[in-house]
């Protein structure tokens, strides 16, 4: 017989938070929400409270010093989660500022006890606890009394079967404050301003008994409240399943929607692969990506485009515009400059699930890097790796475009060193032939698959990308200034 106590997890009502906490907040836990002013502590506490409070499981919100309650109510009601019907029905606000200013620990505890006993709340929030600590610590007998007070409060709140959140201000995790020891859970909120962007982040420093998600998780505060973008987890596996999956997915090939390109790729792009299309500005990367999505629609494979550059309406590619308008292609189009990779991954993942999408285009990595908050740019490559891994875990086939400066002294595929991250690479370049700029492309790599190694000339017409024959009459194409070869050679096929 299993006689272990079952810990019930409460759904917090904050998008992404339950995921970060490992399923939710443990019932009857004693938690601390910490962070500097303006980091969203009160908003987080309110959002959790409005989600959890019901007439059967009411909440008590103790306001202490700090933000005047009038102001708190004025601002918090702007959020859509603030349900007026719950005030006084399921949620009771209790102001303790006078008690804190004049009373000692015992009296404050007695007041809290009286309120808890009279309403038997399922949820108790003390905002801000730092104020209570500061005020009471000015009184006699210092830290020992404070620790005793907090332990008694912890005993009281757990004894009355309440789940509690104490909202603190500047309590540092390294501060030997007794509350940090007593607390079952520690949530740390932070905000970083870097140049013109601000990034908000949440970290779970402690949550007893829970398999929490490590690291800093970015979040936004909008009119709907807080939304947390849980950092994507790269799963470690034995490799056996992966190899089997790869073998299986290789058997399924996706058509690219560009005549002759499938042939160059060795029979289409293996399903679940990531393909990097690198090329200079105007070389036709977006058009190729559009063809890939349009082909998906034709084959009944929904797709999504994450556009950081030209919007579909600006693009000459009306096809894409039409497909987006008709809902056959999902669009994530962002112009903000404070994105985190986790935020975009979250939006993308939910859209993939919603649309049952199997094809994803990210156009382009250069635009993506610009849209990512400066604070995250240092980690861009690592984040990109996480994103591709998550998408590959979902089984979608990803096409990424990358702007590439046309340099003829070396052969580069991406400014991010991201070439190794992808399973396949197509490179596009300009060459000069008879005083004209011509476009060429080649398949550089298709992991574990035979593919063409030819450099083919291509054109962009009203019908899209038209791939020509191999450029056999010239050599030195990648140096940009080809010269005629004496005699054409037959095409080769290679294997990466």
């Amino acid at each position, binding site marked *: 017989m299993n006689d272990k106590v079952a810990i019930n997890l409460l759904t917090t009502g904050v998008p992404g938070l339950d995921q970060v906490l490992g399923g939710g907040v443990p019932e009857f836990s004693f938690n601390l929400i910490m962070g500097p002013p303006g980091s969203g502590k009160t908003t987080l506490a309110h959002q959790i409270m409005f989600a959890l409070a019901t007439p059967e499981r009411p909440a008590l919100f103790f*306001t202490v010093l700090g933000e*005047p*309650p*009038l102001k708190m*109510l*004025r601002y918090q*009601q702007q959020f859509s989660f603030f349900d*007026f019907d719950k*005030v*006084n029905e399921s949620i*009771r*606000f*209790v*102001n303790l*500022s*006078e008690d804190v200013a004049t009373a000692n620990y015992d009296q404050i505890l007695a007041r809290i006890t009286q309120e808890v006993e009279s309403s038997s709340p399922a949820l108790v929030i003390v905002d801000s606890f730092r104020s209570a600590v500061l005020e009471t610590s000015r009184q006699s007998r210092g830290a020992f009394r404070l620790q005793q007070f907090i332990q008694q409060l912890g005993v009281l709140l757990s004894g009355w079967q309440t789940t509690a959140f104490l909202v603190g201000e500047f309590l540092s995790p390294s501060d030997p404050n007794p509350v940090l020891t007593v607390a079952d859970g520690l949530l740390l909120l932070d905000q970083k301003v870097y140049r013109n962007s601000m990034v908000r982040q949440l970290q779970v420093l402690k949550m007893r008994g829970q398999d929490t998600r490590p690291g800093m998780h970015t979040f936004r505060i909008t009119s709907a409240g807080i939304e947390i973008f849980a950092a994507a987890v790269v799963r470690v596996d034995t490799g056996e399943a992966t190899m089997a999956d790869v073998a299986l997915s290789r058997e399924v090939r996706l058509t690219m929607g560009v005549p002759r390109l499938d042939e160059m790729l060795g029979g289409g792009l293996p399903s679940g692969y990531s393909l990097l299309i690198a090329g200079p500005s105007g070389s036709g990367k977006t058009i190729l990506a559009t063809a890939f999505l349009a082909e998906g629609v034709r084959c009944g494979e929904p797709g999504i485009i994450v556009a950081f550059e030209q919007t579909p309406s600006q693009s000459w590619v009306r096809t894409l515009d039409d497909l987006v308008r008709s809902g056959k292609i999902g669009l994530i189009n962002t112009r903000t400059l404070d994105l985190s990779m986790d935020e975009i991954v979250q939006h993308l993942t939910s859209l993939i699930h919603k649309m049952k999408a199997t094809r994803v285009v990210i156009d382009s990595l250069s635009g993506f890097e610009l849209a990512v908050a400066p604070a995250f740019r240092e980690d861009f490559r690592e984040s990109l790796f996480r994103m591709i891994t998550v998408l590959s875990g979902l089984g979608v086939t990803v096409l990424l475009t990358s702007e590439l400066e046309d340099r003829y002294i070396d052969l580069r595929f991406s400014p991010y060193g991201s070439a190794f991250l992808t399973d396949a690479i197509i490179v596009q370049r300009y060459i000069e032939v008879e005083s004209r700029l011509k476009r060429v492309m080649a398949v550089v790599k298709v992991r574990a698959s035979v593919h063409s190694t030819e450099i083919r000339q291509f054109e962009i017409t009203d019908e899209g990308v038209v791939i020509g024959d191999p450029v056999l009459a010239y050599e030195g194409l990648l140096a940009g200034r080809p010269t005629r070869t004496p005699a054409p050679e037959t095409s080769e096929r290679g294997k990466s």
Partner: protein
Amino acid sequence: MPTTDSHREAIRRTLEERAGGAPDAAAVAEATIDIWHQVADRLAPVIGMQGVDVLLSHSLHLTSATFPWLVNPGDRGSNAAQLATLEARLAGCKPEASAEASCALFVTFTELLTTLIGESLTGRLLSPVWEPQASAPGREAQS
């Protein structure tokens, strides 16, 4: 946000109810203080007594533009003194003027609170005060 006519009417009716059928000014004054304490009891747990006191002082200041005799400038800073003056001044004038000034004070107070925390929350916190009550001992309810 201006107080609606129905709200204004509820305040007037509550005052009449508490002051009795044919009230004298003293009854209006007593009812005003009673209602005020009820309002304060409803609000203090939520916004703190200091917040309630500040709102009363501001409401008295605004109402005194129309009824200058309601306040004594010397009382500023003491809520107890302001309430004592209010009761004495209301009791010392004609019943109609007393009722009108009292009603104006509560309307101003409600409007002030509404501008801060919105109509919905103000209504939720204070509506029990303005609800018609069963007849109080020794007084007959009027509707």
